[in-house]
């Protein structure tokens, strides 16, 4: 009703301080993702199928092979943390598809004409992937408890898992966004998504320890961020397992790589609208 809002006059005076704004903008993008999940929870159920298959089919069979998991932990326990990381990875790595989809629709253009800095938009997308990763976490935890995995329910451990899942999802979804910026079409992305998911998954400690690997593959696994995500998750999710590289090292690697990828993606994101 105020007269000032009916003129074409810009109203910079009602715009909040910038740091506050930045976090609000990141949060806005992630909040939209939560709202979408709330409107369509069926997607969560369909996403639950894959971890169920891995744990109940692959896990039950491999549990019969002695000596796969190190230090005498039951194989199913060992696998549970790996599958947690994997299910978050699979959600995150196809995140670029939705960016391409949003470009084709026109939603991306709407984000890009807003005054939100590109890095806030990219970080918001990364946090959105974290939200989806957390919904996967809930499912894998439920399943692990049902299967009698020695899950730690210590609140400190659970908050640690939440943090690592958000970091890992942010990392791989931003990698996915960078790929989307390069390939630009959904068809090409589908092919590439498959091609990179498999090596990230298999060249890691997700389903077997690095000690079983030939040397060259162990080298690859050591530069694979998923290895550090799994290592942290294993230590936090399971009651009596120690981290191999140390939680601080694991999370520093994940945080460092995420920041680097967000910086790269922020430079490329706007070019999708050309």
């Amino acid at each position, binding site marked *: 009703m105020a007269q000032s809002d009916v003129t*074409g006059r810009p109203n910079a005076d009602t715009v909040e301080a910038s740091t506050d704004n930045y976090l609000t903008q990141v949060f806005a993008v992630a909040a939209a993702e939560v709202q979408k999940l709330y*409107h369509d929870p069926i997607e969560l159920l369909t996403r639950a199928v894959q971890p169920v298959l891995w744990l109940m089919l692959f896990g039950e069979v491999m549990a019969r092979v002695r000596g796969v998991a190190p230090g005498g932990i039951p194989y199913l326990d060992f696998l549970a943390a790996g599958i947690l990381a994997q299910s978050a990875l699979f959600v995150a790595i196809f995140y670029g598809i939705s960016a391409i989809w949003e470009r084709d629709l026109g939603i991306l253009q709407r984000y890009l004409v807003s005054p939100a800095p590109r890095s806030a938009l990219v970080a918001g997308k990364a946090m959105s992937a974290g939200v989806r990763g957390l919904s996967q976490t809930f499912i894998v935890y439920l399943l692990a408890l049902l299967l009698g995995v020695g899950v730690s329910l210590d609140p400190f451990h659970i908050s640690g898992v939440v943090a690592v899942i958000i970091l890992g999802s942010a990392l791989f979804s931003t990698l996915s966004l960078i790929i989307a910026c390069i390939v630009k079409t959904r068809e090409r992305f589908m092919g590439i998504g498959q091609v990179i998911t498999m090596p990230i998954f298999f060249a890691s400690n997700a389903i077997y320890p690095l000690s079983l690997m030939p040397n060259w593959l162990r080298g690859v696994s050591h530069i694979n961020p998923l290895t550090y995500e799994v290592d942290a998750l294993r230590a936090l999710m399971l009651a009596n397992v120690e981290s191999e590289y140390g939680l601080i090292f694991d999370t520093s690697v994940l945080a460092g790589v995420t920041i680097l990828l967000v910086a790269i993606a922020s430079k490329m994101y706007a070019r999708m609208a050309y």
Partner: protein
Amino acid sequence: MSEQGQSTVRDGVVVETKALTRKFGNFAAVDDVSLRVKQGEIFGLIGPNGAGKSTLIKMLTTLLPSTSGSATIAGFDVILQPAEVRRHIGYVPQLLSADGSLTGFENLLLSARLYGIPRRERRERIERALARMGLAEVAHHLAGQYSGGMLRRLEIAQSLLHRPAVLFLDEPTVGLDPAARETVWQRVLELRDRFRRTMIVTSHHLEEINEFCDRIAMIDRGRIAATGTPVELKSRVGPDATLDDVFMRLTTATSETEAEGSYGAVRRNRQAERRHG
């Protein structure tokens, strides 16, 4: 321009381009375009597919950098001050920019947060915007269930929430039935008459452009073929000429190889039409 400092506007000119040019390789999609649009004008951009209208709008909305030349919006340079420009413009793309998996309210909330509208004002401004666009009843329905006309009005509400000085409407009535088109134009006229908003509109419905635009630029092969009021342009061609006649006379409507006429662009536009319609 730069000596204007804050968003003060000289002689009521809100949008100004000087020799604005965008090349893709050797092809100049927009070639040496100089335009001035005054506050409170509805300014129509017309021209054949691939003439460069979309490329021009992308540069003015900071989505695409120019190759040379300059453009200012509300006194801010689109290349040097993109964040300020973005604060002062609203953009309704030809494509579908509302998110169908969110409700109308949630779509507006997302915009409100991205534009830094203070928390205490958000709800009230969103509700007012929804009411003004006749969407109050369906505020909490998923936008995916809206009709084409409702989606367009939601998108216009989204792009106005931060009270921009200039609103860009790229084919706002594409794929809409006549009643929905009429409603969209009524809102546009109201924005001009009650709120003195400046609007830049593209459309292939020349009768709409003729009826509702104050001034027009006809673009052909990236260049301005003519500017003026609809009456001025028609009188150049003949006493009983329509805007269609002007269009046929002044443009070379053959564009088989250019960006907007390409297979990909046609597919996207038709998808947009289908989703709106």
